[in-house]
């Protein structure tokens, strides 16, 4: 897990310094959230491929996709809060919901996959997404609040 955190940290540093985009108060959190969304999409593609190749049962597939749906919905709530410039505690609460949904998917879906190779692939992919989320949390904790406009 430590190795994966190092990898994700390097990814985010490269992404932030390569992006060249205008920096807002939550810029680091936005970049990390974007990495999470990309990671979730990659996880879903990997899961569907495992299912289509017959390595995951229909029950396992349904359970995991239900978990992905909850995570995606929590992600939309977080993104909407960031788009509207919500206060940091609101965004942190939305992020916590997202973290909880991801933990639930790991415990109730991924760790229940019977095929060991499929489980290893999905576990590694979801752990990457979890590591990215902890970066979002770190970025939010260090974000400088925007001064209120008159």
């Amino acid at each position, binding site marked *: 897990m430590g190795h994966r955190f190092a990898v994700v940290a390097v990814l985010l540093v490269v992404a932030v310094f390569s992006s060249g985009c205008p920096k807002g108060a939550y810029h680091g959190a936005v970049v990390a959230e974007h990495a999470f*969304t990309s990671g979730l999409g990659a996880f879903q593609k990997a899961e569907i491929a495992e299912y289509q190749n017959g390595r995951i049962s229909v029950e396992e597939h349904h359970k995991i996709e239900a978990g992905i749906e909850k995570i995606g919905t929590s992600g939309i709530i977080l993104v909407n809060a960031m788009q509207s410039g919500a206060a940091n505690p609101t965004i942190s609460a939305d992020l916590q919901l997202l973290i909880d949904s991801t933990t639930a998917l790991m415990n109730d879906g991924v760790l229940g996959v019977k095929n060991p190779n499929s489980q290893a692939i999905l576990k590694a992919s979801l752990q990457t997404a979890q590591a990215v989320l902890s970066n979002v949390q770190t970025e939010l904790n260090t974000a400088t609040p925007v001064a209120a406009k008159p």
Partner: protein
Amino acid sequence: MGTPATPLTPPSASGAVAIIQEIAMLEPIAFNLVASLVRGLKGKSDADILASDATDLSSIVAIAHSEQSK
């Protein structure tokens, strides 16, 4: 007296190169992810990124919903 803490080794250029090589060799998914991230972020404002992510997440939710009926 407790066990003395292990001293942290400062990062070096060779260490950074080793990590990047390790990513390329052992983490092809992560390596592809960073390439995709850089492409996706280049020249975009935070608002652009969030708008694009909202669309992507909606698509992920729609696919997940559809997959549960298969």
